[in-house]
């Protein structure tokens, strides 16, 4: 087990270093190696989808077998998965029946969830003051309200001073967003470096 952990660490670190260098060094064969390793990663990710779907089905079957809450939905999910997968293999993804499965089932269901999300967000905004009564919450809600007023169409035409609201809030929001994104980029860089040095090993090493 220990040898496996050491070998996987060596493989992960070497691949990481080559891919990272491939972005900065143009000397042969580093860029070609980077592309090769990226292609392998994409292929492995494709196989991982199959493993993931097996995991999804196995978890749902376990629910059915042990008569857990929601087991009926689990059975329905596995049945739908088998039927869709079978028809997909037989007919191909471009078949009108398969397209119907996407356009008549998956898209409407996702659209319905999107609609629920809109209501959920309004409800969460209303409840914000129950959770936190502080200055930032007031600022957040006032800014959101002003922005919506300036953006939305009204029966009386544009709200007076909408350009000013959009100008000021746009500048503040853009600045804030850039600040957050710079922080996230730095966090991502450091997280990547920890993996690269083997300090974090999410691939099974201890």
């Amino acid at each position, binding site marked *: 087990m220990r040898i496996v952990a050491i070998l996987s660490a060596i493989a992960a670190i070497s691949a990481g270093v080559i891919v990272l260098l491939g972005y900065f060094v143009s000397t042969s064969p580093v860029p070609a190696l980077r592309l090769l390793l990226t292609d392998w990663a994409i292929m492995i990710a494709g196989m991982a989808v199959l493993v993931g779907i097996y995991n999804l089905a196995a978890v749902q079957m376990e629910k059915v077998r042990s008569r857990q809450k929601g087991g009926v939905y689990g059975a329905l999910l596995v049945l739908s998965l088998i039927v869709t997968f079978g028809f997909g293999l037989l007919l191909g993804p471009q078949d009108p029946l398969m397209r119907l499965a996407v356009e008549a089932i998956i898209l409407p269901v996702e659209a319905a969830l999107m609609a629920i999300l809109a209501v959920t967000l309004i409800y969460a905004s209303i409840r914000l003051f129950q959770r936190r009564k502080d200055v930032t919450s007031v600022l957040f809600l006032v800014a959101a309200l002003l922005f919506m007023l300036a953006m939305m169409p009204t029966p009386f035409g544009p709200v007076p001073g909408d350009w000013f609201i959009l100008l000021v809030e746009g500048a503040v929001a853009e600045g804030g967003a850039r600040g957050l994104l710079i922080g*996230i980029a730095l966090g991502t860089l450091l997280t990547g470096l920890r993996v690269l040095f083997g300090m974090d090993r999410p691939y*099974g090493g201890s």
Partner: protein
Amino acid sequence: MIGLSLVAVAALLLIALTLWRRRNPAMLRPIGAYERLNRAVGLAVEQGTRLHISLGRGSLATTRGGSALAGLGMLRRLAERTSASDRPPVVTSGDASLAILSQDTLQSGYRAAGAEDQYRFSTGRLTGLTPFSYAAGTMSVEHDENVSANVVLGDLGAEAGLIAEASDRENSSLVAASDDLSAQTIFYLSAQEPLIGEELFAAGAYVGAGAAHQASLQVQDILRWLVVLAILAGAFLKFLGMI
């Protein structure tokens, strides 16, 4: 060249500060959400309830993988700490390779705590491959599995609203952070203690994942100051008409 220099400086600082932090552990400023998380972990073990950790759907093959790796770092430590619990934590994700890594990380955590026999592969789950199917699958875990606390950490979009709402409906505590701005806004509205921006990457340090995580925070602070100085210098030079 600037990019490579930045990476090299960050790498050197990370190594040096990790060695330093091994001997001198850092005093971290209190962050409400992580204090809540540490309390929730203790309570889940004591009460025999379950901790639900959701790692989002950030594929490791894209730039969104950073937040997923940060989540895995935190998961490793949480798995160790909850290995004594009657009900092991459930981990959900919306990306297949992330789901496999979450199983591996859980197993490593149990192994490190000497409780590998407690590990079940069904505790690391893929709940869906599209944003809303992932959210729908995650909501059912929150509803059905006697969850007392939800930790949502990773790359999510607007579907975060549904996950947060399900947690609220079940009266379970929610600690949530994302690298996506729309998800951050939603979590600001929904979570009791919001985590903003790079606070997502502090999770490991605050759950006791080790010196490297503490050193990372310090390097982030140093680099942030360098970026601030570069922006100010750029603005000043632009004002003078030199660039």
